[in-house]
């Protein structure tokens, strides 16, 4: 029963994974023959000034998007856990950004933020007519905003589910002790959601390694290389500079990073995704 899944996963998951390693020791321009290249790609990539920058940008986007999304999702998730009609209605609308493809979202925001023909110019609001995608820090900010716009609803729903499972007796006990709402939120809700937070964070953090489509369409890694995350660096080296070897080195680093982050988050006491609390 397990064989079909195993076979497909091995052929298209494990073999490419091994392939990344193998290719990282070769020289291939993507057009002609593949030659062995020993350690030269690793040497050149690891000593190249682009790599630290790409790693920095990757982490910057990862950490900042996590820091924006998590508190907001927690708050919204707790709010949505209420049973009123209108909250259910809000949840329905919240969900829409998740249905759009990253390509569609990037295209939309590109038009929306255009300093000469976009929203700011149309409304004649100076604040909105910034060179959003042309200044390094603004561009990173825009990427983080769009990621949040896209994924906060999803994480809010995860938290909503988590909050609804917290036994009400805990809150009742706290009320009797005279704890206010804010106090209850920090001393009951947040600790009780530990596993949910780990789950949601893992999805956010490992997911942030895959922000390729959005950035590719939005800024192509620009301005300069301000938004060139590792995935984009890999693509550019491989498919634009014709250097599949160095690109595979970057790919291998992305895989290692993904594994390391997932392990780290497991150590923090959760499991990689769904909580595996058997009858907790």
């Amino acid at each position: 029963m397990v064989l079909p899944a195993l076979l497909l996963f091995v052929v298209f998951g494990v073999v490419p994974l091994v392939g990344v390693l193998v290719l990282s020791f070769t020289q291939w321009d993507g057009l002609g023959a593949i030659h062995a290249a020993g350690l030269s790609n690793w040497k050149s990539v690891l000593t190249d000034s682009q790599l630290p920058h790409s790693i920095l940008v990757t982490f910057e986007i990862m950490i900042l998007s996590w820091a924006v999304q998590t508190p907001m999702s927690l708050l919204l998730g707790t709010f949505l856990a209420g049973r009123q009609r209108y909250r259910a209605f809000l949840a329905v609308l919240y969900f829409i950004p998740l249905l759009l493809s990253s390509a569609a979202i990037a295209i939309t925001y590109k038009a929306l933020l255009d300093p000469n023909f976009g929203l700011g110019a149309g409304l004649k609001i100076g604040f909105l007519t910034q060179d959003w995608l042309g200044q390094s820090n603004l561009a990173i900010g825009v990427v983080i905003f769009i990621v949040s716009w896209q994924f906060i609803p999803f994480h809010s729903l995860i938290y909503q589910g988590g909050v609804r499972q917290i036994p009400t007796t805990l809150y009742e006990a706290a009320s009797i002790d005279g704890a206010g709402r804010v106090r209850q939120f920090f001393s009951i809700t947040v600790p009780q959601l530990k596993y949910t937070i780990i789950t949601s964070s893992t999805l956010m953090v490992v997911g942030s390694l895959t922000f390729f489509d959005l950035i590719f369409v939005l800024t192509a890694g620009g301005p300069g290389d301000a938004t060139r995350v590792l995935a984009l660096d890999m693509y550019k080296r491989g498919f634009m500079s014709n250097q599949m070897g160095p690109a595979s080195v970057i790919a291998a680093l992305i895989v290692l990073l993904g594994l390391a982050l997932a392990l780290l988050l497991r150590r923090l006491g959760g499991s990689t995704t769904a909580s595996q609390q058997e009858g907790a």
Partner: protein
Amino acid sequence: MRVRKLLQLNWFGGLAGWAWLAIVLIPLYWIVVTSFKDQSAYFTQNPFALPSAPTANNYQLVIQSDFPRYFLNSVIVTAGTIIPAVAISFMAAYAIIRGAGSRFLAGVNGLFLMGLAIPLQATIIPVYLLIIKMRLYDSLLALILPSIAFSIPLSVLVLANFIRDVPKELFESMRVDGATEWGMMRKLALPLTRPALVTVSIYNGLGVWNGFLLPLILTQSPDKRTLPLALWTFQGQYSVNVPAVLASVVLTTLPIVILYAVSRRQLLSGLTAGFSR
């Protein structure tokens, strides 16, 4: 009262809730309104004003540029990925749970767990090479096969969590009645894990439907384009014509929004069931 107790941070949460709604809706409103304007109106009118002379020309332009073809490709790739992916993941999850204690199955499970942390993007170069070698380059199958493989880890994990919750006594009693493992899987595990099947189908389906990198690298012919790729090329062709580009955004998203409107309840409960149990 449970409800009242749940309303922590009521007014603050409410404020955040409505503010977020505005943030979500404003761009969406702008997309729809602008897609009905003609180009000159786009440059001259207030961006939030309703079109003074609404026009469907943009939609006509998009539909005439082979939109139905791209739509069909996206449907084929999504269905062609999800149906087999969920089926084989379900079988694998069942085997892993029922075969607890087998070292081989534990190893397979570990392999899938590792797969969770591997972004598809990172393996694109070898996948490209593999697809070339298999002579599948520029076919829809080239998109389907890797998509299935990368849907497996999460699907197995979520489904296994659900199958684990099926009481062991039920299996026992069925086995006493002479049911085979296949029979038990079909008659017992399948109905009980239906919500989880919906969850993983939707989660992976959204990912495949909106996927961009695989079509970008693995296909070339216009008749193999999926919607996100078509959107990108369309944007290149008409990028000065913002309303037309936005009309294409609306059209590529519309099918999903309709699907969402129809099956909302199942979607919302299903989508998060696997993550926040």
